[in-house]
């Protein structure tokens, strides 16, 4: 063999494309990711959005101000009430209406109940994504309590349409306080067991710890908000920055954890459920009794200008920009959705990971695709 001219063969494995298609059992909605893979390692992610794009922003330009609220709870349907509250607050800020205290307290309680429901569903689907199929059933069973409470008062289980500019649509059901007071101790007793089911399991810990680490500078640069940013130590809770409704008179902690890996984001959401229970407990006992609707004109026209209202949904920082030119329809409405920026983070975190890790990372990001596609 002629050893002088021996060249080392450059063994390059070929990269191939895999489609994590719009229908897949890790049901986060219709998200299509085009992955470039090298063996089992993901090299590049390109999201292909638009499967549930309903042009809500364009449609808002043709509707009156009282009607655009009904479009917003189809955005992030798991935090439907908080989205409605955002638009109602933006309009009230523009018109400088003072809402009754009862309205503020009701809106906050409903918002926190929605947050708990959203986090429970996230927990169930998270377990299902990594393989523990029983968590799905437990989470939905507890979510049914919240859905029943909501249905008594607002008439709907998912898309509540409850806030209006100036107040809320209906008064609370007569059993509302009693049922919420029964629900809180029940959830407090089962949440530690649920946590133990997953975090007590070494298989789960090995799939979560140290995977998908997001540094704080990256979190700010990519615009991540909500539990994604709080898991990396970035303080980004809108309820503390600009308190709205009745949140300025309750006492709760903002859950901040270091680490930035999957386990930190998981723990942030589990602890947030306890904080929400604390908020509800502080408010449920003395709901003031001064009416449910402030006086507004029948046809609302905002003054010229630009108005921004930020709220904290279960996913992060949701902003409503209303740009008005004095007419009865808004000139431009823009919804700044938290999932859009968190998707940016996924593109970065997913590089050079295994495929199984990508599934686990996207489960902790908690996407709701209608929020991203609008």
């Amino acid at each position, binding site marked *: 063999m002629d050893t002088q001219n021996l060249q080392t063969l450059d063994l390059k494995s070929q990269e*191939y494309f*895999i489609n994590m298609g719009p229908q*897949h059992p*890790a049901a986060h909605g219709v998200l299509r990711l085009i992955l470039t893979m090298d063996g089992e390692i993901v090299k590049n992610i390109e999201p292909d959005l638009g499967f549930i794009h309903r042009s809500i922003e364009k449609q808002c330009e043709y509707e009156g101000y009282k009607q655009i609220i009904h479009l917003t709870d189809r955005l992030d349907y798991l935090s439907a009430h908080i989205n409605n509250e955002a638009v109602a607050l933006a309009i009230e800020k523009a018109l400088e209406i003072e809402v009754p205290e009862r309205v503020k307290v009701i809106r906050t309680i409903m918002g926190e109940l929605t947050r708990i429901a959203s986090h429970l569903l996230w927990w169930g689907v998270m377990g299902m994504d*990594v*393989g*523990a*199929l029983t968590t799905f059933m437990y989470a939905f069973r507890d979510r049914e309590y919240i859905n029943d409470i909501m249905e008594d008062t607002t008439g709907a289980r998912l898309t509540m349409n409850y806030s209006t500019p100036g107040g809320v649509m209906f008064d609370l059901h007569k059993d509302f306080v009693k049922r919420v007071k029964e629900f809180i101790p029940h959830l407090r007793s089962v949440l530690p067991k649920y946590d133990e089911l997953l975090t007590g399991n070494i*298989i789960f810990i090995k*799939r979560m710890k140290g995977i998908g680490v997001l540094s704080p500078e990256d979190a700010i640069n990519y615009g991540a908000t909500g539990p994604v940013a709080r898991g990396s130590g970035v303080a980004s809770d809108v309820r503390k920055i600009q308190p709205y409704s009745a949140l300025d008179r309750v006492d709760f902690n903002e859950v901040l954890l270091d680490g930035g890996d999957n386990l930190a984001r998981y723990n942030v959401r589990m602890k947030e459920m306890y904080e929400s229970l604390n908020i509800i407990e502080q408010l449920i006992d003395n709901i003031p009794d001064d009416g449910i609707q402030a006086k507004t004109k029948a046809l609302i026209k905002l003054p010229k200008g630009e108005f921004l209202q930020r709220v904290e949904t279960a996913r992060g920082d949701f902003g409503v920009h209303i740009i008005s030119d004095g007419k009865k329809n808004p000139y431009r409405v823009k919804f700044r959705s938290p999932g859009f920026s968190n998707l940016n983070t996924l593109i970065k975190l997913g590089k050079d990971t295994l495929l199984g890790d990508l599934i686990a990372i996207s489960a902790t990001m908690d996407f709701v695709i209608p929020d991203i596609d609008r």
Partner: protein
Amino acid sequence: MILTNTTNYFAKFIEYLSGAEGLNLGFAGEILAYVVIAALYLAFFAVAGLMLVYMERRIAAFFQLRLGPNRVGPWGLLQTIADALKLVAKEITGTERKDGLLYHTAYYLVIVAALVSLSVVSFAPGVQAFNVNIGVFFISAVSSVGVLGLIFGGWGSNNKYSLLGAMRSGLQMISYELSAGLAMLTIILMVGSLNVDSIIEAQQSNIFLIQGHIPALIAFAIFIIAGTAESNRTPFDLPEGEAELGAGFHSEYSGMGFAYFFLAEFINMFIIASLTATLFLGGWLAPFGITDSLPWQPLWGLIWFFVKVLGVIFLMMWFRWTFPRLRIDQLLTLEWKYLLPMALLNIVLMALVVYFDLLIKF
């Protein structure tokens, strides 16, 4: 002792059809006897598969605080028959450019592997179709044919995801066969023979799990883990349960093709459970050594055997509905870095225990 004067009922049946005292049909009688026995096993295969699927659905429902199938038939017992009829009526579609030979051979291979392994299992004294002297090793060897079936299915489907799933599954199965085989070897050290009957005979006084105390317990744990991985169940069901793979290597199969894969998975689980029961728990022997005193031997043997097998199957189903699944590299790390060295050391330990006669016998 029971075993020395037990007749093999199948052998008697073959004798009856072909031999001098019975119908005396000669060679044709022998072939007919084989066909009847095979049909019997096929029927058992089908019924056991259906019952295991029903059991899985009910147990899963009870773990998840719901009811499970309870409409079709009394307590929902006929549910799986309804499902099977539905699957039979479906068209076996395939992908456009599939490799026809591999695609259609795949599901036959897994069925063949499962059925042939079933023939060595000893259900009761005298109820064993194939009494070879390499009993348990035969099962381990034949299950490799099943792996071939998976890989054919993945390649022949002409689908990237099926191929990924088949590759992962093949890798997993051949890795864990090593640990399973070594755990089996640990028990063989106590017996000195691979024959299924000898193994059960050696457990007359008390079961191997107690006889071989520490090394046998370790081998039991290793065998359960490796067995769960062999039949592709959670926590090792990465090839078929992963979010992006859909159903892994059998995602392009429908109708009877899918039914075969599905049934074969449950029968594999049954075989692993019967091996566990035979090697560690005493097969069809009654507990506390009262086997001799019971009348109607084969019937009682069957009852004890099925009680033990169903207990192990319940354990495997419990795993499935509680644990998350392991990633592929964690799975392989578990096997090659932890289970395999532990199994090898365990063999040495068991050899020492047997040599110095430290077994617990009473």
